[in-house]
């Protein structure tokens, strides 16, 4: 296993920059996830690391060695492809053994390794079969087994679970995580699914238009999004964003006008704000609550109308309208208001994020002690 360092990686296709000066440091044994919408350059970045694409600028170090110019085979990385890329004319055994034999590993050692990996992934009974006769989940295991048997320095995974159904995907997520703990492997994992990113990664790099927007732990990404793109991309349902204006900015405190109310937000640093500045106020669906506030944290924001209700069983997601703005509220499934009903909407002001409306960059997050008051009351 080894540490992976990507320094100023650049790759273009024609006039399009697919990867634009990306830096990423993945520690030895870390599970790093490249997260972003389709076309953000995450797969290209993975292929650059694999050596399947050539870097234009920058360099890639694996275990301290510059592999930027090395052929794919000489990088000692193994890749799991989105559609498995199993050799359809070979049996499962041959699929796993093919790469090992190419590396001049002895016959008995190849057989041993294949059997060991197959046992670990519970596919021993499939060794004699061809990929065409396997289910999606089984193929996925074979593809994983093929990568693991190589015992590479780095695992590259390109949306390996995206072809599986929801149930199998969640099983395989847990399995991959277990496998990662057991192998202690360094993994670079590409996905557009934020649930995969949050649950599996120890480090998440959010990409947009070929650039890294934010790199951090899943918790960082979720609770301290670097900009409104990350805020709305990570989290399901996504963060609510409302437009507002900074009424007053002081060190450690900012007052923001939104609709008919104003928020007094406490925080350590509001240096990015200035009086009169346009801001986007971000609040997670779970930080909104229907009904009159009955705890000290929540404050009444106004009356909203229920537009859509999405019951999930353990919770319900409600789409409500508050003075023309559509908001999403996550709530427990008991005593829900009906369609068209007018209900009070409360907010937890201590969980509010502020983004600069022109750049989208976060200008701070509220902390305990933030309050909401009717317009004028805070002045």
């Amino acid at each position, binding site marked *: 296993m080894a540490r992976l360092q990507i320094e100023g990686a650049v790759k273009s296709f024609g006039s399009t920059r697919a990867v634009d000066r990306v830096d990423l440091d993945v520690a030895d044994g870390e599970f790093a996830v490249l997260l972003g919408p389709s076309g953000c350059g995450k797969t290209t970045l993975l292929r650059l690391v*694999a*050596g399947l694409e050539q870097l234009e600028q920058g360099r890639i170090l694996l275990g301290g060695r510059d592999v930027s110019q090395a052929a794919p*085979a000489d990088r000692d*990385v*193994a*890749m799991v492809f989105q559609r498995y890329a199993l050799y359809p004319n070979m049996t499962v055994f041959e699929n796993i053994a*093919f*790469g090992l034999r190419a*590396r001049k590993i002895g016959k008995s050692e190849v057989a041993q390794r294949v059997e060991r990996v197959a046992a670990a992934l519970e596919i021993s009974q499939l060794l004699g079969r061809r990929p*065409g006769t396997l289910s999606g989940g089984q193929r996925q295991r074979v593809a994983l087994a093929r990568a693991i048997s190589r015992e590479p320095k780095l695992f590259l995974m390109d949306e390996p679970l995206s072809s599986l159904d929801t149930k199998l995907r969640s099983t395989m997520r847990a399995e991959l995580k277990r496998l990662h703990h057991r192998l202690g492997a360094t993994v670079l994992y590409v996905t557009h699914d934020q649930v995969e990113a949050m649950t599996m990664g120890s480090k998440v790099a959010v990409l947009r238009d070929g650039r890294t927007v934010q790199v951090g732990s899943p918790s960082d990404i979720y609770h301290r999004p670097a900009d409104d793109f990350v805020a709305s991309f990570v989290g399901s349902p996504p963060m609510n964003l409302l437009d507002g204006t900074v009424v007053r900015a002081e060190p450690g405190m900012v007052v923001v006008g939104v609709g008919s109310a104003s928020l007094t937000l406490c925080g350590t640093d509001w240096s990015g704000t200035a009086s009169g500045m346009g801001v986007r106020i971000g609040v997670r669906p779970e930080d909104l609550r229907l009904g009159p506030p009955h705890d000290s944290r929540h404050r009444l924001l106004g009356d909203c109308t229920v537009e859509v209700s999405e019951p999930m069983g353990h919770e319900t997601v409600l789409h409500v309208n508050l003075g023309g703005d559509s908001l999403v509220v996550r709530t427990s499934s008991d005593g829900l208001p009906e369609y068209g009903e007018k209900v009070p909407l409360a907010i937890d002001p201590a969980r509010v994020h502020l983004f600069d409306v022109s750049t989208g960059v976060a200008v701070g997050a509220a902390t305990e002690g933030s309050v909401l008051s009717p317009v004028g009351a805070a002045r």
Partner: protein
Amino acid sequence: MPRGRFREPRGQALVALCLLRHYVAGQAVPDLPTSGSPVVSPGNVLANVGELAATNALEPVGVAPGGRTPSRSWWRETASGVVPVLPALVVLGTFVYGPAVLVVAMSFFHWNLAGFSQSQFAGLSHYRALLNPVSGFVPSLGVTAYYVGVMVPATVVMALLLAMLLRDSTKRVRGLSFFRAVVFLPYVTPSIATAVIWVFIFDPQFGLANAALRLVHLPAVGWLSSTHWALPAVMIDSMWKQVGFSVVLFLAGLSRIPTELMEAARLDGVGPTAIFRRIVLPYLSPVTLAVVMLTTIASMQTFGSIYAMTGGQGGGGGGPIGSTTTTAVYLYKVAFVDFHYGFGATVAVALFVLILGLILVQRRVGERRTFYR
């Protein structure tokens, strides 16, 4: 019924669908679609789709109330299927199937141009004569075997090589489509025209072929006047002419191979030779089988280029001293130089049976080694 109903392409498509419906449902076309059977099969499903489409776009289809007697609409539907295929059926029947049946009949007669009534029945005597060494049929088989035996493997190898050079992933090569066109062009050029060019090339004194040999200090060859070199010369012409078609087939096959497989292999450290042997070739196996079968058929039937390149003395081609007399050339000489039509027909039947047998064997053997995804 509006008369111009099938002028629209959609109408024609529906006719095809109706015919297909009968075919897939396993009914002979004249069978009446009487009581609707509740059996669910792909055929029935398709039939329903066809019926629905026909009902929506045209007019009510099917069966008279009670479902026993053929209704007017049934006749209409049948006619609407048969009429469009009639021209093709007439042409094929007159010029292909009819003559083919006639040839089989002729092979049992000492055929006279005046027709069967004036021809003497020969029984199996022509078939016995085939096996007589004097007849020339057996030697022609030897020449054919030599020709086919070289042409088929050489075409497969050459076509595969060219296809690998001209495949999509070499897109960065400038003028790729130009080279593809160059390779394919001889295939669509008349064989007599190309044969004339090759006759020039193989001219012993002024030809390019001998000039090239002299350039590398090899002795000049008599080519078309040599019993050793005439057939190889014809092979070079045929190969140059035919290979383009097989290249196109291989190119189509190559484009089906997922690039991910190659990438996975490259990452695994598999070398180009092993990638070719273990991934590319297995993927191309169905195409290879098709190329082998098609080249076999084409080679067994080659006539035009041999006739044009080796004609002249004695007439009918196949010289010198029968060294290029393949069975197809032999058939021509028997029938149209010696005017033994009945025996010529027998040779034609024998050639047909031979090709059919060879193709069946190839398919049997090939399918076991062929990998279909």
